[in-house]
C-alpha cells in the first residue's frame, strides 16, 4: 500500500513526520540506513525463510544484495559501523521503506513495499527500564497518531529459557529444546520423542561406533572418529570440525542409553505453552505451574511483573492487554520481551506496531561483545488505515 495519490502521500508523510518528531524529543537520533543491504547478513542470521520473503539479487559486480526486509538489522549494522567496539549507548529512530515478497500476491494489508517508523535502543544496561521506555514510546506513537482503540499483546522468551534451565535435564536436551522452541511443529515432535524415549533407530555407523564411543571423553571420541575416517579414506569436508562431529556422536550415543524426558517436565512445558490470559493472570498461572513442578523461575517472573508495574505507573492501561507464552515464537532474534499493538477488527497478523528485545543479534552481526538491544517498529500504512477507519 504505497501512497498512490497525492493526498495519501501527504497524510502518510505528515504522520511519519509527527512520529519521528516524537522519537526525536525522546532522545532518539534520526538515521537513514541503506535500503540496499548485503544479502549475506540477512541470510546467514535470519535464514532461508526470510530469503523466501526477500527481494534478493546479484548486481553487475557479482555482489549479492537485498532490498531490506526490515529496518532492525540495517539500523543495528549502522550502530556497529559507528561504534565498532560496541561499548557506546545509542538511541536511533528511522522512517523508511522495507520490502517483502508476498507469496499470495501483494494486498493492502500485506504490501510488498511498506514503510516502517521506529526506534532501536542499543547498549542500555538497565534492561527493564529500556524495555519500558521503548514500549511506552510505541504506545505514545500510536496514540499521538490518533489511535484510541487498541490492545497490547505481550510475550517473553526469557521465561521459557528460565523454565528449561530450572528443569533437571541434560544440557544437550536443553540446547535442543531452546533451539526447537522457535520451530513449533518440530518442537512438539521433539518433546514427544524425548518423552516416549522413542529413539530413532541408530544407523550403521553409529551402531559400529556406538559401543566404543558411549561414555568416552570428548578427546577419546575424536580419536575414534579420526581413526575411522582414516581407515575408510574419508577426508574432512563441509566446514564442520572433528570436534563437532565427535560431540554429536557422543550425544547420540548418550541418548541410546538415556532415560526418557520426565513426565513432569513434559506436563510443565505443555501447561506453560498453553498460557494466554491477561498479564497479571498469566504471571500467576505460570508461577503456579512452575511451583507445582518444584521449578524456581521466580527471578524471571519478577522481571515480568516489575515491567507491568512500571507500565501501569506510567499510565498504560493493561486491562485489555494479553500475555501469551506462544507469542513471539516465529522471530528467532528476540531474546526477552516481545510485544505487538493490535487493533480490534484487524487480523492479528496485521499489527500496527511490534517490537521486543534482541540481545543476541549484534554479536551475530559481528559485535565484539553482546549488546543489549530493544526496539519497536510501526507499520505506518496500517496505522493510518486504522486511524482512518476509526474516524470514518
Amino acid at each position, binding site marked *: 500500500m504505497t501512497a498512490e495519490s497525492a493526498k495519501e502521500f501527504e497524510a502518510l508523510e505528515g504522520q511519519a513526520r509527527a512520529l519521528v518528531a516524537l522519537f526525536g524529543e525522546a532522545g532518539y537520533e534520526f538515521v537513514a540506513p541503506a535500503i540496499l543491504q548485503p544479502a549475506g547478513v540477512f541470510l546467514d542470521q535470519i535464514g*532461508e525463510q526470510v530469503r523466501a520473503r526477500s527481494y534478493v539479487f546479484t548486481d553487475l559486480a557479482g555482489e549479492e544484495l537485498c532490498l531490506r526486509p526490515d529496518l532492525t538489522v540495517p539500523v543495528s549494522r549502522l550502530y556497529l559501523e559507528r561504534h565498532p567496539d560496541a561499548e557506546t549507548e545509542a538511541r536511533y529512530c528511522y522512517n523508511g521503506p522495507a520490502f517483502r515478497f508476498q507469496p499470495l500476491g501483494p494486498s493492502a494489508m500485506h504490501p510488498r513495499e511498506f514503510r516502517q517508523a521506529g526506534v532501536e535502543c542499543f547498549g542500555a544496561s538497565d534492561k527493564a527500564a529500556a524495555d519500558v521506555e521503548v514500549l511506552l514510546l510505541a504506545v505514545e506513537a500510536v496514540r499521538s497518531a490518533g489511535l484510541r482503540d487498541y490492545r497490547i499483546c505481550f510475550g517473553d522468551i526469557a521465561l521459557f529459557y528460565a523454565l528449561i534451565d530450572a528443569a533437571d535435564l541434560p544440557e544437550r536436551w536443553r540446547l*535442543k529444546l531452546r533451539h526447537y522452541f522457535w520451530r513449533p511443529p518440530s518442537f512438539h515432535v521433539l518433546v514427544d520423542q524425548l518423552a516416549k524415549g522413542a529413539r530413532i533407530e541408530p544407523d550403521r555407523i553409529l551402531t559400529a561406533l556406538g559401543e566404543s564411543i558411549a561414555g568416552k571423553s570428548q578427546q577419546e571420541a575424536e580419536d575414534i572418529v579420526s581413526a575411522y575416517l582414516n581407515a575408510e579414506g574419508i577426508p574432512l569436508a563441509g566446514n564442520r570440525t572433528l570436534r563437532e562431529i565427535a560431540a554429536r*556422536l557422543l550425544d547420540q550415543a548418550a541418548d541410546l542409553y538415556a532415560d526418557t524426558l520426565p513426565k513432569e517436565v513434559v506436563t510443565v512445558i505443555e501447561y506453560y505453552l498453553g498460557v494466554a490470559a491477561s498479564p497479571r493472570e498469566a504471571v500467576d498461572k505460570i508461577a503456579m505451574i512452575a511451583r507445582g513442578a518444584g521449578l524456581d523461575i521466580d527471578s524471571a517472573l519478577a522481571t515480568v511483573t516489575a515491567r507491568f508495574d512500571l507500565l501501569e505507573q506510567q499510565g498504560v492501561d493493561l486491562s485489555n492487554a494479553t500475555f501469551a507464552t506462544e507469542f513471539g515464537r516465529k522471530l528467532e532474534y528476540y531474546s526477552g520481551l516481545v510485544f505487538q499493538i493490535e487493533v480490534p477488527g484487524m487480523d492479528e497478523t496485521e499489527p500496527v506496531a511490534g517490537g521486543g528485545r534482541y540481545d543476541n543479534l549484534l554479536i551475530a552481526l559481528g559485535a565484539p561483545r553482546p549488546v543489549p538491544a530493544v526496539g519497536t517498529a510501526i507499520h505506518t500504512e496500517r496505522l493510518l488505515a486504522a486511524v482512518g477507519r476509526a474516524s470514518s
Partner: protein
Amino acid sequence: MSAPSLVIAVPSKGRLKEQAASLFEATGYTLRVKGHDRGYRGQLDGLPDVAVEYTSASEIVHQLRAGRVHLGITGEDLVRETVPDVDSRIEFLAPLGFGHADVVVAVPECWLDVSRMADLEDVAEQFARSHGRGLRVATKYMNLTRRFFAKKGVTGYRIVESVGATEATPATGTSELIVDITSTGTTLKANHLKVLEDGLILQSQAHLLAAKRASWDGRAKELKDTILSALSS
C-alpha cells in the same frame, strides 16, 4: 505456409535432444530439422501441421507455463523447480523413460553423525553455536530445496546458488551440503558425499508435457492425442 495447428518444443542439445529424437524415430514420426542441421525449427514426418521448436530445456518450461507452445519435452525437475503454480499451468502427459535423475540432499561422508533430514536441524543448531551462522546448501534447485526442507522441518540454513560443479562445494568450503541431481551416484561418491536416507526430493525423468494455457482447438487436441499415444506406446 499456413500457421501450424500445434507447436511442440524439444530440447536443442545434449542427451535429451538425442533421446527425444530416437523416441520419435521409433514411432515413425521422425524429427527433421528444417534448413541446415543447426536450425531451431523442425517438423515431424507425417504430421505436416505440427511445428517443432528446438530450445533449451529450461526455456521449454517457460514456454509451456506461458502457453506459447502446446506440448514440450523436458525434465520434471525443471518443471517443479521453475513453476510455482504448476497444477494450473502444465499437465504431465507421460513419462518418457529417459533423462532419469534423482534430486537428492547430500552431505559430506565424514559427517558420521548425520544420516537423516532430522539430523540437519540439530547440526544447524550446533553449527550456529560454533560458527556463528547457519548451514549453507549449494544448489540450483532453490524452490525444490526450500519446499522439501520446510516439509522436513529444517530451517537453520541458507541457499547459495550454484550452477556448476555443485558437488565440489563442500570440499572447497563454500557450502556445507548440497542438493543436486544424481543418476548413478558415482559423482557424489567421488566427491565423498552421501545421500541422506530420507533425502530423496524427486525422482525425475523426461516427460511429455502439455501447456494448459495454450489455445487448444479441435485439431490441436487431435494432434496431442496422436503424439501422446505414439510416444507412450
